């Protein structure tokens, strides 16, 4: 099942955003985030904690798939696969062996809007691990053999899903929504675009994107601020001051259209895309609370009640906000028996229509506020990795280091009129609808 409006970091609060500190209470949250700035001016947010002897670091640069040059789609994906395949004086084998012996795990990745890295290491071998991370960040080798191998693996993945209806439908859906915007392009590229990528392209991308002006860093675990300062200079101090990014326009997804992908499957999957709100929008929390009531809760939402609980039409039905850097949306997603797909679509439209007309009840809003406030710490305090992810995202979205202290009051302040307005603003639009399944209304299947 896929996630739509493409691949994303979706919905803010409840699932992804969130944070708090080790000392936070789920509601009030006194957060012990230390802003740490090195002598070369590199800033990280640190949560210091020694209860488990490990250190986790996450960092990102603005960039991602949108920075792949036209015709070289997949470049940022390919690059992400190459950081642990040789750096500095170490070739792929030597690098990986040292990393393993050093007791660390390292991963890089790209999404629509960023390139990011992650490492966790045992505290007592952190010096070795940070040295390797520095090499990877600063001096990736981009040797021919690993390039060819990782490229071949990505191509193998593309070929393997060539005849998969969901993959093909998602491609069509992205193009329908985003037109000629970079978000419409295949993020892993195509056989042809990958074949066009050279080591020089990788070096150029690395130089343009791995720069200090868009760098964000989050660190959690057994490390103190002074030590971290030195590590920050080691890791990032030699990177260029400024990035060199190609401009990207904001894009409103094209709604009011139906995209069909006919294929004889035992289920029909449905996605409906509505307008969204950017994370920076003052009405973000109003929209977020509205979405939670509509289809955001696990077992408690209007869509869950109507589609699954009352009618047994689907196993999963959900709605979520998409907040990419250059686009936003609200998506409803489900999969249902093909012979009842029309009925399911009608039920969803009806639930959406009612929400747009009347908004939620006072009781629903009160419950949603409680959930959204309480779940923030709950969903993000459970591991160092989750905390690091949260601290990074707060920085990427410019929410401020005191965000957690302000958040509860911001949510509490949302009025039912604001939520009704958000419902009207988002849900009165005629959505884009994706239907993947058998063409006509077929015979019921066992």
């Amino acid at each position: 099942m896929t996630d739509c409006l493409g691949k994303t970091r979706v919905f803010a609060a409840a699932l992804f955003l969130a944070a708090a500190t080790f000392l936070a209470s789920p509601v009030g949250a006194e957060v012990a985030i230390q802003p740490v700035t090195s002598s070369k001016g590199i800033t990280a947010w640190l949560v210091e904690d020694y209860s488990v002897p490990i250190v986790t670091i996450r960092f990102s640069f603005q960039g991602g798939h949108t920075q792949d040059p036209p015709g070289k789609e997949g470049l940022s994906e390919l690059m992400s696969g190459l950081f642990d395949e040789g750096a500095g004086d170490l070739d792929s084998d030597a690098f990986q062996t040292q990393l393993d012996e050093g007791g660390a795990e390292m991963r890089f990745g790209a999404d629509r809007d960023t390139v990011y890295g992650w490492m966790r290491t045992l505290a007592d071998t952190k010096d070795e691990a940070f040295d390797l991370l520095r090499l990877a960040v600063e001096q990736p080798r981009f040797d021919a053999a690993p390039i060819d191998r990782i490229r071949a693996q990505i191509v193998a993945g593309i070929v393997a899903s060539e005849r998969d209806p969901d993959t093909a439908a998602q491609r069509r859906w992205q193009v329908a929504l985003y037109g000629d915007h970079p978000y419409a392009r295949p993020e892993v590229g195509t056989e042809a675009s990958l074949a066009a990528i050279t080591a020089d392209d990788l070096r150029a991308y690395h130089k343009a994107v791995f720069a200090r002006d868009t760098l964000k860093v989050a660190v959690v675990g057994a490390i103190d601020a002074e030590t971290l300062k030195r590590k920050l200079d080691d890791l990032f101090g030699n990177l260029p001051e400024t990035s060199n990014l190609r401009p990207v326009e904001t894009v409103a997804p094209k709604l009011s259209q139906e995209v069909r992908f006919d294929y004889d499957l035992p289920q029909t999957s449905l996605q409906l895309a509505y307008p969204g709100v950017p994370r920076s929008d003052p009405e973000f929390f109003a929209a977020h609370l509205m979405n939670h009531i509509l289809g955001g809760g696990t077992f408690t939402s209007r869509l869950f009640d109507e589609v699954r609980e009352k009618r047994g039409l689907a196993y999963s039905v959900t709605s979520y906000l998409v907040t990419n850097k250059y686009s936003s949306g609200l998506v409803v997603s489900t999969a249902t028996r093909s012979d009842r797909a029309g009925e399911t679509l009608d039920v969803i439209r009806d639930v959406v229509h009612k929400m747009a007309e009347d908004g939620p009840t006072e009781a629903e809003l009160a419950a949603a506020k409680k959930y959204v406030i309480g779940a923030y710490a709950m969903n993000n305090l459970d591991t160092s990795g989750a905390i690091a992810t949260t601290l990074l995202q707060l920085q990427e979205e410019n929410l401020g280091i005191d965000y957690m202290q302000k958040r509860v009051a911001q949510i509490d302040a949302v009025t039912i009129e604001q939520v009704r307005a958000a419902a009207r603003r988002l849900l009165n639009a005629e959505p884009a609808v994706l239907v993947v399944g058998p063409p006509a209304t077929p015979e019921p299947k066992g």
Partner: protein
Amino acid sequence: MKLNTNTRRVLRGVVLALVLAAGPAFADAGKKPAGEEISHFLLGNGMEVVVIPDHRAPIVTHMVWYKVGSADEPPGKSGIAHFFEHLMFKGTEKHKAGEFGAKIAEIGGSENAFTSDDFTAYFQTVSPDALGTMMDYEADRMRNLILTDAVIGPERDVVLEERRSRIETSPDALLAEEIDATLYQNHPYRIPVIGWMHEMEKLNRADAVAFYDRYYAPNNAILVVAGDVDANTVRTLAEATYGKVARGPDLPPRLRPQEPEQNTARTVTLSDPRVTTPSFSKSWLAPSYNTAEPGEGEALDLLSEILGGGVRSRIYQALVVKAGIASTAGAYYDGTKLDTGSFVVYGAPRGDAKLEEVQAAIDAEIAAVVKDGVTEEELEAAKNRFLRSMIFAQDSQSSMANIYGTALATGGTVDDILGWPDRIRKVTSADLVKAAAKYLRSSGSVTGYLLPAEPVQN
């Protein structure tokens, strides 16, 4: 994306292997920094309790594991264990349907449940002050569900859709089902956890009630609480809630039909128009930690790690990195089963390479281990990865809760988990050779092929 709702997570294969690797990891959990040890005790009615303190955050994970899974279902009733898991979210005499969920949501908590061959578990993650409330609701639904045809009908439709979502729409999942049905010739592990469609369609209220009455009782359940609590608090709260539930009839030992000796190489093939690149897997029965001779489970775990556990493994290095004939290749061991587990190798060709080359190269890597063993360096590196995984795993209270719940529901003990690192340290190359020679015989295996349709359709 969250495909969660009364999720059944079939903890199998790779996932299970990972859970295990990370799990017994917790060995060192007994000496957590806070100095608080894991507690393990029984309530008067026979309910087992494990408390895993972790005070880093004001969060607690509350789980109840029932020692019943799909392998305990009556013949012809496949899917009842998982279907019943869904029904546990319906109302009781005291609390109408949805009330528990609303209560959890109101405090920002999360909840779910999952079913495997050997166990069924329900969990909530909440703030510690809500722990007593969670226990109250969980204890209530252990015995007091109201099961009417009105709730059974729509929920059966939901699990049928779940089967379509997870299995029917996925060639990989369909093939995996058939491989299990072929690998296990007599044991109920041959039957999918979610059930066969034709039997699921007929599950009814009487089946659900019979299943509930037989298996849902405190003396067949394990309470696992991990997080910001202490053992005394848990004991007090548990006695006031679960402790009030009457002990059920003693359940007989979980004796399922066992596998006969297997001496044939079987093949299962699925061709599907959605498939472009062929791939294969080869599976063997292998003892689980619970059924193995001492040390054998640990040897199989390390064998799978060295053969095909990641990018530093023999299979990956030989096939993907050096020869360049595979896009993916590896191995895993599923040892967290009450009865016989399995060992699997898999791969898919890349570029012009043929599937047969990939298979032959993997066979050669197995043969090389049987002939020459593994090096001390390889063994040391693999052990260190396992031992490290347990330290990393301490970072997640829900991982810890899952590790203990899984082990205790599949025949293990707290001491087994605590002693796992020491047993891992003792494994030798000779142990791996012995395990490989004994269990990875082609004359007793199932090879599964996922192939493009013929003729190719577009």
